[in-house]
């Protein structure tokens, strides 16, 4: 006697749970019960769970009876000719959707030849064991698992043609690749996903060789000629926005060119791009500090109407300007309302991004690297046919990572380019590597994909043959232009007087605890002091009370302590401002930190 639950609500009992479940599944296959119903018999707890709720993830499988799949070649032919459809097969019970619970009772074969009478289901395709992105890796079944996942992870960060309406969108931090291409070496998923309509990489000629040590540690060497011909060029979009917020008392922000009486008025120069409506004109070329949207806000604290009934009517400047290191061209402006009905102005900036040293690229096998140098086309090595590669990839990246798929894609790409066809690299079901290589030989190339190459600078023949072919490379959204930053002096925080943090605020790079320890270990005591000088302060300390004093404006700015006043014996002491704050904090806790001062000499 097993309890039956529908959506985890107790509904009744059945005498023969196994039979009950089998009947229910049979009814579902026969179309008497909806196809989205799933059922599970848990023998451990002796419960039957029937699931009808929405929100379960289900997946389709081919039903197997007596070791034979119900899906026959006739079905496939009919599907191809359009005689029958997917949902027709579902109705016939050839295919069924199974959820995680019902899967517990199923034995699923991945390949048809693995089927035994015990099997209940068959995967529709063996690549079903992979995710959508992972299945995009060609010849991925030749790769080490970890690399496959990395390749998939990084593909998500690739630039491409992410949306056809990108020019009216206000997405944050996006890029559009100028000349995206379809990959020569594809997988089944590229057709399913209609990848050709939104590709995200380019087919490049790649040579596996080192170049003066520039491509050590995963770096890549790029042909300058390729870049000049448009390789991996992209446009970067960054929207900024301003809202007219409403405040209490009927006051509100105003988007306009601030007038000169405004508090915090910058300079006329800074507002030069603004048009009459206070918004920048399209196609203006702006750089750091330029105002994009002019805005003023009402005063922060309303100081009431005073005696003489003169309303102190100053407004605060709160324009939106470009942050440190930003530049671009105004691309698109949108005027709308936000959820509360306030005026919302969005200005999108565009910036051309030519590949430069430090930009990140990746093949589909998790082989990522940054550009280390850009070499003039004339200095690149060339093959006997006069082919100069676009990218030089270091051979040291291969052995330890075991990305054999990377190497096979390279020959595959070469054959695909020569035969003007696309190579199928679908995992577990790809074109035979040997066949590909034999085909390569028919085009008059070395069967192993290598070629004789010549030094681009001297014209001498290279001592070894170079593995040369075509691959699909992706440009990732991590670009130095967005990250490069340095500082010698700059803004500090108000509270601690220490440098600000982060690129947008022109911040410093923190010398942390462990870095400090290295100075200590070297005994570089004075260097350490100098490094931590950023918030140094000279404060007057009273010898009698041991407290940090203050400068009394009424007494000619004399330093004195709060206890002894004019009788204080003040001495200037150099300490870090953070330590002064710490002492203040102790005082706030009711602790009296007494500093003992002593002459240094």
């Amino acid at each position, binding site marked *: 006697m097993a309890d039956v639950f529908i959506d985890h609500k107790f509904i009744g009992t059945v005498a023969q749970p196994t039979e009950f479940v089998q009947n229910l599944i049979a009814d579902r296959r026969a179309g008497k019960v909806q196809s989205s119903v799933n059922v599970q018999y848990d023998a451990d707890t002796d419960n039957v769970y029937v699931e009808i709720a929405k929100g379960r993830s289900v997946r389709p499988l081919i039903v197997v009876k007596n070791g034979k799949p119900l899906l026959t070649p006739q079905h496939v032919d009919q599907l191809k000719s359009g005689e029958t459809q997917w949902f027709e097969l579902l109705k016939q019970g050839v295919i069924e959707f199974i959820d995680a619970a019902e899967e517990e009772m199923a034995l699923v074969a991945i390949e048809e030849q693995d089927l035994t009478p015990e099997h209940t289901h068959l995967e529709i395709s063996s690549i079903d064991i992979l995710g959508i992105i992972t299945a995009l890796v060609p010849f991925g079944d030749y790769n080490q698992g970890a690399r496959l996942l990395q390749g998939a992870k990084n593909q998500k960060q690739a630039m491409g043609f992410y949306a056809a309406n990108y020019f009216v969108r206000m997405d944050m931090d996006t890029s559009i690749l100028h000349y995206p291409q379809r990959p020569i070496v594809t997988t089944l998923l590229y057709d399913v996903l209609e990848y050709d309509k939104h590709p995200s990489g380019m087919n490049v000629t790649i040579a596996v060789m080192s170049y003066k040590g520039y491509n050590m540690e995963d770096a890549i060497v790029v042909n300058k000629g390729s870049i000049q011909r448009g390789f991996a060029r992209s446009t970067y979009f960054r929207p900024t926005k301003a809202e007219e917020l409403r405040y209490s008392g009927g006051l509100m922000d105003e988007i306009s060119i601030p007038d000169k009486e405004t508090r915090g008025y910058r300079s006329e120069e800074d507002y030069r791009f603004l048009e009459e409506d206070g918004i920048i004109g399209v196609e203006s070329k702006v750089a750091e500090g330029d105002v994009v949207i002019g805005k003023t806000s009402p005063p922060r604290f309303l100081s009431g109407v005073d005696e003489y009934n003169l309303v102190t009517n100053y407004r605060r400047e709160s324009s939106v300007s470009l942050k440190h290191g930003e530049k671009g061209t105004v691309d698109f402006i949108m005027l709308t309302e936000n959820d509360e009905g306030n005026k919302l102005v969005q200005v999108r900036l565009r910036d051309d991004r030519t590949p430069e040293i430090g930009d990140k690229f990746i093949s589909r096998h998790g082989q990522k690297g940054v550009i280390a140098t850009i070499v003039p086309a004339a200095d690149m090595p060339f093959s006997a046919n006069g082919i100069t590669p676009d990218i030089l990839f270091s051979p040291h990246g291969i052995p330890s990572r075991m990305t054999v798929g990377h190497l096979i894609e390279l020959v595959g790409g070469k054959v695909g380019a020569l035969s003007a066809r696309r190579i199928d690299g679908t995992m577990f079901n790809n074109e035979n590597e040997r066949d590909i290589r034999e085909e390569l030989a028919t085009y008059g190339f070395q069967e192993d994909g290598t070629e004789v190459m010549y030094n681009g600078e001297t014209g001498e023949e290279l001592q070894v043959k170079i593995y040369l072919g075509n691959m699909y490379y992706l440009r990732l959204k991590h670009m130095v232009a967005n990250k490069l930053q340095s500082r010698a002096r700059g803004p500090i925080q108000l509270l601690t007087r220490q440098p600000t943090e982060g690129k947008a605020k022109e911040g410093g790079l923190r010398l942390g605890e462990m870095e400090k320890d290295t100075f200590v270990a070297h*005994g570089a*005591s*004075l260097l350490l002091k100098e490094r*931590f000088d950023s*918030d140094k302060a000279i404060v007057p300390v009273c010898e009698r009370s041991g407290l940090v004093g203050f400068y009394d404006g009424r007494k000619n700015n004399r330093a004195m302590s709060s206890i002894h006043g004019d009788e204080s014996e003040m001495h200037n002491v150099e300490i870090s401002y953070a330590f002064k704050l710490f002492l203040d904090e102790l005082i706030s806790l009711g*602790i009296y930190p007494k500093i003992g001062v002593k002459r240094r000499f």
Partner: protein
Amino acid sequence: MLPPSIKKEVETYVKENKLTAAKAKKAQETVEREYTYGKVDAGEAVGTIAAESIGEPGTQMTLDTFHFAGVSEMNVTMGLPRLIEVLDARKTISTEMMEVYLHAPYKEGQDIKKIAEKIKETSFREYIKEVNIDVLEAVMTIALDSEKMALVDASPDKLVKILAKSAKGVSFKADGNTIIAKSTSKSDTLKEIYLLKEKIKSIYINGVKGISMVLPVKRDEEFLLVTAGTNYKSILKIDGVDTARTITNNLYEIEALLGIEAARQAIINEIEKVLDNQGIDIDVRHVLLVADTMTMTGKVLGISRYGIVKEKQSVLARASFETPLKHVFSAAMHGELDPLNSVIENVMMNQPVPLGTGIPKLVMKK
């Protein structure tokens, strides 16, 4: 200049080799020079260097627990968790174990099983073959495992004595190879017998308390016992145990029994064991410094806020490590004075730290 022991060594060398006076002097000078050269310079940040030297390779250590070499079915905590345990000087460690060395004849493997069984803590559970409860009579009949009993020279009568001592309100009677238990109270006897069944299983019968497993191991032509659980004091009292070499991995037991110097050596050995196991090569002197610091107060202190950090003189140094408020408040209550003479306080105040280039000072001519 030279410590007495080295001085003596030089002198005996001179005597043994009958060196001339000039040569003897030269030898003396050379040794002195090398000795001075080998000394750490004043102001060298030995502590920081030791910390970095152990800490950096420590990041590469795996968190795995390895199976102890040659011992089956025994997991020993090694690697980073064990290192942290030693350095923190934890009172309870995750795998306590001992290596019990033996004298002849056990050393050669003779009767090794017997002594192993003698050491292992056994409870009554292990001698039971079968338990039957007569519900009507409220009588429990326990069939004993004679093989097991023979190993430790136990007889049913002996067991009855032990049982009678620890279980009150029940009468036990030996009958051949079985023990019959009967409740002496009048009411609720059946329930009591049921409870008794579970209770008597955990009654201590034989062996050294705290030793839950004993495994005989052959190492370098010699048999020894590796135990799970430790009880250093009791083990050393057992006949046939080589007291000179038998060791536990519990620092506090060593400290209590053999003193602080032994505990220091034990810390060094335990750290080295972990480092060797991980294939990490660290100069011993770093480890020595750590062990010295942990034991310099005369008791084992861990590198934690309850251990050596608590012993620090400076309020600011203690406050900068962990739980700052606690230290600041207690300092305020006791009116502590911070002489500001170590590293961290001076970093906080942005003053030169008293190390390396921070040591030399300008002296004004009076």
